[in-house]
Structures are given as structure tokens and as C-alpha cells.
């Protein structure tokens, strides 16, 4: 997963409409920090750079490099579990 990847949630994984959890096969993941903000933006057409750009508009003054690193780290962790695919 890098800045040019176009990640999306794997089939059978979706955000709960009201609770701060991700529903996955046989379980749920509690979402911490900005994870929900990242995942709501994965529509299969935006790449990671575009997701980061959108997040920077939400969080004015945040450091670009740090946000890029945080987003990639969340996405890579979820990709390892098969929850996000590039």
C-alpha cells in the first residue's frame, strides 16, 4: 500500500451506520482515532493521496507527512487482516 494505491473495504466489511465500529465477518473492530474518517473515504476511486488531501481539509494545520504516515499505517494494518484491499 502506498500513496498511489486505491484502497477499498473488502467485501463483507462495512462501517456500522451509527456505532463507531467496523462490521467484519465473524466480528467487529472498534474504531479509534481517525480510523472511521479514513474508512468512510474509501470508495474504490480515491487513492491514498486524495484521501489524505480530504483529511487535511478537515483537520486544518495538521502535518502532511504525519497524516500520510498515519493513514498508510492504518490501511496497511487493515490490509494485513484482509479488511482493506488495494
Amino acid at each position, binding site marked *: 500500500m502506498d500513496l498511489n494505491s486505491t484502497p477499498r473495504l*473488502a467485501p*463483507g*466489511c462495512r462501517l456500522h451506520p451509527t456505532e463507531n465500529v467496523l462490521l467484519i465477518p465473524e466480528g*467487529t473492530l472498534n474504531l479509534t482515532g481517525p480510523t472511521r474518517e479514513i474508512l468512510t473515504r474509501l470508495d474504490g476511486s480515491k487513492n491514498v493521496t486524495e484521501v489524505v488531501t480530504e483529511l487535511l481539509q478537515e483537520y486544518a494545520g495538521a502535518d502532511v507527512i504525519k497524516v500520510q504516515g498515519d493513514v498508510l499505517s492504518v490501511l496497511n494494518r487493515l490490509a494485513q*487482516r*484482509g479488511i482493506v484491499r488495494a
Partner: protein
Amino acid sequence: MTQTNTTLAPSSPLSLIAELTHRCPLHCLYCSNPIEMQKAESELSTEDWRRVFQQAAQMGVLHLHLTGGEPLARRDLPELIRAGREAGLYVNMITSGVGLTEDRLAMLVEVGLEHLQLSFQDLDEVSANHIAGTRAHAIKLALVPVLKRFPLAFTINLVVHRMNLDRLEEFIALAELLNPDRLEIAHVQYYGWALKNRSLLMPTEEQVQRSLPIVEAAKERLKGKIHLEAVFPDYFGSFPKACVGGWGRQMMLIDPAGQALPCHSAAVIPELQFDNVREHDLAWIWQSSSAFQRFRGDAWMSDTCLACPRKERDFGGCRCQAFMLTGDPDAIDPVCSYSPHHGLLKNLRVSQPETLPIWRG
């Protein structure tokens, strides 16, 4: 060790298991359905299930597991899936795949099916069909490429026991080839029909020991590709499993006739009285049904368990197993090395002379 308030129920279970029917084209030797199966005439109606799903979602349940028997035996299955999704639940279906055509699958996905679980009885067709009591293996294999064309999470469940554990590596290789999102390697649990066939299915100690590094290696090799989960055979452990995440803590099972059970096999414990969703709403059952209250918390526990810090992890182990092996549902789960009955398992683990299989009805 102080006793905590034993009757206070968590506000809601996390998952609801809906045994839609006990009808099934398969007759697996280890089926978890009760020996006394519910008849088709007594099954809940579409409307009953719709009401149950809504009540479940309202109380905070997140996952709905449609199982059986074979869910496809219900003609109203698309309506039931739609009802689950409309209520707000995540919908999973556990199926044999027998009778699932591409058109029918397209319909089920269209109405909201999110995850499908397919189990394999063995890697070899003759043996797999023998275990299933019917010719299902080729049908399952043929279904997989069809499944992969749909936006659906797909889990393969490999059920392992004495008859196939020696070929675990090849069995895993077959599963890899089929390329599911998730792979579960589950040892048979000795309840229901599996208990009847225990002497036939129980692996040897050597088989279990050889299988452990194979599972670990597969986990490592498949990382990032297939999520692997393995269920250890608890007869070979020193401490009990946290059965169903603790009695009346995380899950509720509704049987085809509407009885609400704390687990798949709770009906084996003779004293338990189950309430029915035809007469009570789910929230009442969860909070007040005597069957759910019976082993909630720690009031029922022996002094050994009460004094043991592990009770917060295993919640006293499995009540059904304690009853089946000792005749006392309050006994320490004999899997636990602190149980005075732990020696029983040593005898049960010894390979038994071959006996004749008993297929599920």
C-alpha cells in the same frame, strides 16, 4: 475472592444465531444440531423471524448468523435476509451449498447477504461424502468459483478429526487453491451427533501434536492473503475454552421452533427451561429467561473456580460438557486440570477401537 453480582445481564448479546430449520440434505457425523431435531411443521414463520431480527437489532445485536440445518431449505430465505438487513444486522449464512445455483445466490446477495461460510468434510471426495452422508463434495467444489464472482465475504471451514487430521497439509492446500477470504480450521467439538461418534472422530494425541505446527506455518504463510483462525480441540487442553464467550454474555441462539438457547447444545442439560420468541420478546428473554440466568456470573461456580483468576477469561468453561462428562452441570469443566474429573479426558483421548458411524438424521 468476592462474588460479583451474578444476575446482571450484559445489555445485549453481540450475535444472534438463527437456526432457521433443522432440515438438511447433509447428515454429517459431527452435526451440532440436537439429537431431537425440530420438525418442519413447528418452524417459525417469516413474520416471526422478522420480528425477532428487529428486536435483536433494537437491543444492540450486531451480527446475524443464519444457519440450520440448511438455510436454503427455507423458501423464504431471501425475505429473511432482507429482513435481517432492514433491521440493521450484519447477515452471515452458514450453508452446505447444496441447491445454491448462481441465480439463487445472485438473489441472496441482492437482498443483502454479506458473508457466506462453506465447510468441507475432507479433501478427498469419497471420504468427504462418507462423512457428510451424502454426495456433496463435488457440489461444494463447483460452487466456489461461482461464489468468488459476487461481492461477498467467503469463509471456508475445514472440520478436522481423526479421519482427516493426518492429511491436514493437503487439506489446507486445497482450501488455499479455493482462495477464500477466511479459513477456519475447526476441530470437531463433542456435542450433538459428534458426541455419538466421539470414539470414531477423536484424534490421537500424536495427530493433534503434529497438526499444531502445520496450522502455525499456514497462518504465517497466508498472512495478508487469507485470514486463518483455528479452533483447538479442548479435550487436549489443560484449561477450558471460554465457551460461547461465557454463558448469557455474548450470544443467543433461536432454534427452528423459536426456543431461545444460550448455546447450540444447552438443551442437553435437563433442568433448563427455554422461553420462546412466540411468547416473549428478545430483550425480556435475554434479561430474565431462567435458562440464560442459570450460569450467568459466578454464583453457580465451585469454590475452586471462584478462587481462580482464570474465571474472568474462561467463565468456568463449558456447562454442557461438564454435564455430559460428569452428570453435573455445575461441575468444573473436566477439561480444566483443576477438575477432579480431569482424568476422564485422559481415557477419552486414547484412541478407541473403530466403531460404526452414526449419521445425523
